[in-house]
C-alpha cells in the first residue's frame, strides 16, 4: 500500500511539471502585458520608457528561461510570488477568495449527493418504466442546462416572484450562517444540478450493472426481500463508481465556477481567474492554474485510494 501510494505521489510530479511548463509557454506567447493595462488605463498616457521601467521592476524583461527557473525555484519553496497587478502576494490574493469558492463547491457536492443517490437508485430499480424515464429526462436535462443560464434564471425568479435579490457581499459562514447561506445557496444550486445529474446517472448505471451480477441474482432467487438485496449488496458496490465521479467532478466544479461566479457576482477564485486573464497577470494566472491542477491530481489520487480501500480487488492491481 505504501509503495503504491509513493509511486502515485511520484507520478504527480511530472504531471504538475508538465502543466507548469505548458502554462508558462502559453502565457508568454499571448500578446500584451499587465504593465500596459496598469499604466494606460483610463487615458493614462505614458511613454515607452516608463513602460519599460515597470517591466524591469516586475522582471518581465528577463530572458524567458530565467523567468521560468525563478518561478520553479519559487514553487519548490512554496513561494508563489506577487500579483503583477496589485503587488500583493499571490497567496494572499487567493487566500481571501478561496473560502467562498470551496464552500460553494462543497455545498453543490452535498446537494448533488442528496439528490443523486436516491434518484439514481430509484431509476435503476424501476428501470425502463415511466419513473426511470422521468428521472433520466431530469438528469439528462441537468447535463444540458448551462449553469450560468440556470443562475440567471434563478436570479430572475427570485426577483420577479419574491422581489428579493441575494446579498451582494460575502459574509463568512461563522459570522452569520443565515446571511452566508442566503447568498451562496443559489450558485450552489445552479452548479449542483449538473453535478447531481452526473452522479445520479453514474449511480443508476452501476446499480443496474451490479444487479446483473450472479450473487445478486442468487440472493433475489432465494426470495430475500428485494430492498435488503439492494441495500446490502448492490448499494455498496454501486457506490464505488459514484464516489469516483463525485471526486472527479469536484475538481471540475472548482474550475467550472469560473462562469457561474460572474453571474452571481461572487468574489471567488473563478472571478479572480477571469480578471487575471483579462490583465495578463502572469504570476497570478500561473499560480491559479497550478492550484487547479494540484486539486485535480490530488482528487484523482484520493479517489483511487478510496477505491482501493472500498474494493480490495483494486489494491494490488
Amino acid at each position, binding site marked *: 500500500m505504501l509503495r503504491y501510494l509513493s509511486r502515485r505521489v511520484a507520478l504527480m510530479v511530472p504531471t504538475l511539471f508538465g502543466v507548469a511548463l505548458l502554462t508558462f509557454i502559453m502565457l508568454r506567447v499571448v500578446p500584451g502585458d499587465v504593465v500596459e493595462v496598469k499604466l494606460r488605463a483610463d487615458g493614462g498616457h505614458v511613454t515607452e520608457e516608463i513602460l519599460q521601467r515597470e517591466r524591469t521592476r516586475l522582471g518581465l524583461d528577463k530572458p524567458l528561461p530565467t523567468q521560468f527557473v525563478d518561478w520553479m525555484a519559487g514553487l519548490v519553496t512554496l513561494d508563489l510570488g506577487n500579483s503583477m497587478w*496589485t503587488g500583493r502576494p499571490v497567496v494572499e490574493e487567493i487566500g481571501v477568495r478561496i473560502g467562498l469558492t470551496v464552500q460553494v463547491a462543497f455545498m453543490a457536492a452535498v446537494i448533488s449527493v442528496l439528490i443523486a443517490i436516491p434518484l439514481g437508485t430509484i431509476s435503476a430499480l424501476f428501470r425502463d418504466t415511466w419513473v426511470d424515464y422521468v428521472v433520466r429526462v431530469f438528469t439528462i436535462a441537468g447535463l444540458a442546462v448551462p449553469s450560468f443560464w440556470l443562475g440567471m434564471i434563478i436570479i430572475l425568479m427570485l426577483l420577479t416572484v419574491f422581489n428579493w435579490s441575494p446579498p*451582494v457581499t460575502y459574509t463568512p459562514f461563522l459570522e452569520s450562517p443565515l446571511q452566508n447561506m442566503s447568498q451562496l445557496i443559489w450558485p450552489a444550486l445552479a452548479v449542483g444540478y449538473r453535478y447531481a445529474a452526473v452522479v445520479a446517472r453514474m449511480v443508476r448505471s452501476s446499480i443496474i450493472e451490479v444487479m446483473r451480477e450472479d450473487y445478486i441474482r442468487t440472493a433475489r432467487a432465494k426470495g430475500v426481500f428485494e430492498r435488503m438485496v439492494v441495500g446490502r449488496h448492490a448499494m455498496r458496490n454501486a457506490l464505488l463508481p459514484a464516489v469516483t465521479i463525485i471526486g472527479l467532478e469536484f475538481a471540475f466544479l472548482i474550475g467550472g465556477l469560473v462562469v457561474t461566479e460572474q453571474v452571481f457576482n461572487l468574489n471567488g477564485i473563478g472571478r479572480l481567474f477571469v480578471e487575471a486573464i483579462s490583465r495578463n497577470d502572469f504570476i497570478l494566472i500561473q499560480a491559479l492554474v497550478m492550484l487547479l491542477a494540484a486539486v485535480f491530481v490530488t482528487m484523482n489520487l484520493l479517489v483511487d485510494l478510496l477505491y482501493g480501500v472500498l474494493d480490495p480487488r483494486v489494491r494490488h492491481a
Partner: protein
Amino acid sequence: MHNISRRTAIALPTLALASPALAQQRPDELPRRGGVLTFAVGAEPPTYDLHQTGTFAVMHRVAPHYSTLLTYEPGNYPNIVGDLAESWTVSPDQKTFTFKLRPNVRFHDGTLMTSEDVRVSYERLRAPPAGVSSNRLPAFRQIDLITATDPLTIVITMKEVDASIMDTFASPWNSIFSAARLAQDPTFPVRNVMGTGPFRFVEHAAGSHWVGARFDDYFRERQPYLDGFRAITMTPSSMVNALSGRQIQAEFRGFTPNERDRIVRALGTEARVEESSWMLHMIVSFNTERPPFNDPRVRRALSLAIDRWGGSASLSRISQLGAVGGMVRPGSVWSASPEEMQQWPGYGRDMAANRAEARRLLREAGQENLTFTLLNRNHQPYVTSGIFVIDQLRQIGVRAEHQQVELAAWYAAQGSGGFDVMIDSFTQFSDDPTNVLVKYVSFDKAEVATARATDRELDRLFDAQARETDRDTRKRLVRQFETRAMEQSYAVPLLWWQRIVVMNQRVRGWSMAPTHMIYQDLRDVWLAPERS
C-alpha cells in the same frame, strides 16, 4: 406580461424620471453628522498610489484620504478654489505661481503638513525616482522650478506659458503625500494610505471592500460629516440589485439608462438621479500605417458612413453612449456648436448624401469591396459601439469583421499597431483642450494617438492653443484643430458617453460633474435619516 409598460419605461426614460428628480437636495438643509456611506466600485484597485495610475478604481477609494493643492469648487464645476492652498497669486507673465498654504494641516499620523510635502509630492510627479512611474509627466513638462520658500509658501515657475496648468494644480490625481514617508520609501503610497484628507484608511479586503473612518483632525472645521465610508467591489448588475435593495447607497461612476430605470422603479422617490455629458468618448481609430487606411479618402468614407445623430438617439436608450460631439466634450466651453459640427465629414444630417459620398470616395480609392478587422474590447459599451459601426459600414458595402479581445491584448494592439481599425476611447479629468486634443496629434508626440499618423499642421495648432491664454483666440485654434483632424480622419470621434449617477436620496452634499474623477473626497457628503 406587462410588455407595453416595460417597453415604454425603456423607450421614454425622461418620463420615468420626472418624479425622482424632485428628490433633489434642498439648499437650505443643514448637513447632518454621522453614518457610514456604503457605495459600490466596479473594479479592484491595481495600486493605492494616485500618482501612478489613472483608473477610477483607485480614485473612488483613495480620494477621501488625500488633499490636493487646489480643487474644483463643489457644485460649481469648473471653478477652481484652494484645497491645501489658502490663497495664491499669479505673475503678470503667467509664469510664476505663489501658493500660501493653510496652517495647521495634519497628516493622519499626526505630523504637520508643510510646503516641503507639496514640493516633494510635485517633484515625484514631475521626475519620479527609480521604482516609481508618474502618469502625469505630460502635464508637468512645462514646470521649471518647484520651491518651498517658507513652510507655508510654495512657488512654482514655468518654462513656458501653459494654459492648462490650473487644472494640473487642481487635479485629483496630484495628491500630497508625506515627504518624510517618501524619504524613507519612495513607493510608500503604493501599499499604504496616509494623507491629509477627510478620512483615515482602515482596511482593504482584496476583491471585497475598502473602509475609511472620519479623520478628526481634518483641516476643514466640522467636516467631514460622515463617520466613515465603505466601498464595495461589485459588478454593474449586482450594483443595480444592491442599490435597489438598499444594500448600498450610491455608485459614482455611472449606470446605463435601463439600469437607472430599474433602480428608479425599485426605489421610487428614494432614488436620486443626476445626469451630465461625460468626458469620455468612443473613437474609431484607423491604423494609418496600414493600407488602405493610409488613404485619407478611405478613412473619410468610413467616417461618413456613420450616422452619429441617429446612433445617438437610439444607442442612448440602451447604453451609456450619448451625445454627438467633436474632440472636446459637447456642452463644454470649448465645444463646437451642432451647426459647426455638421460641416465635418460624417456629422451631416443627410445620411443618404453622406453614404453616396462615402461610396464615391471608396470607388475613387479603388476600395469598393473593402473588408477589414475591427478590433474591440469585449466590454460594454465598446461592444455596442462595435455592433453599431459594423452595421453602419455594411450599409456602404464595407464588411468589418469584429475581433473582441481582452483588455491586455487590446492595449498590446494599440501599442504595437497590430490592428486595421479599432474602437478606442479617451477620458480625462478636465475639459482643457491640451488634455484632450493630445489624443489626436502626431504619434511621435503622444503615444496615446493610436492612429499612428504624422501631421505637423495638427501639432502646430495643438502647441499654439496650449500657449494661448486668451479664451476666444484659443477656442478658434481648437476649432481649426478639429476641422483639420476631421478632414484627415486619422481617428474620428464616434459618440460621447452620458454619465448617469443614481443614488439613494439619503446621500446629500455630493456634486455631479462631467467627470467621475473629481468630487470624490466625500468631505461635503452627508447622510439624511432613513425614511420610515
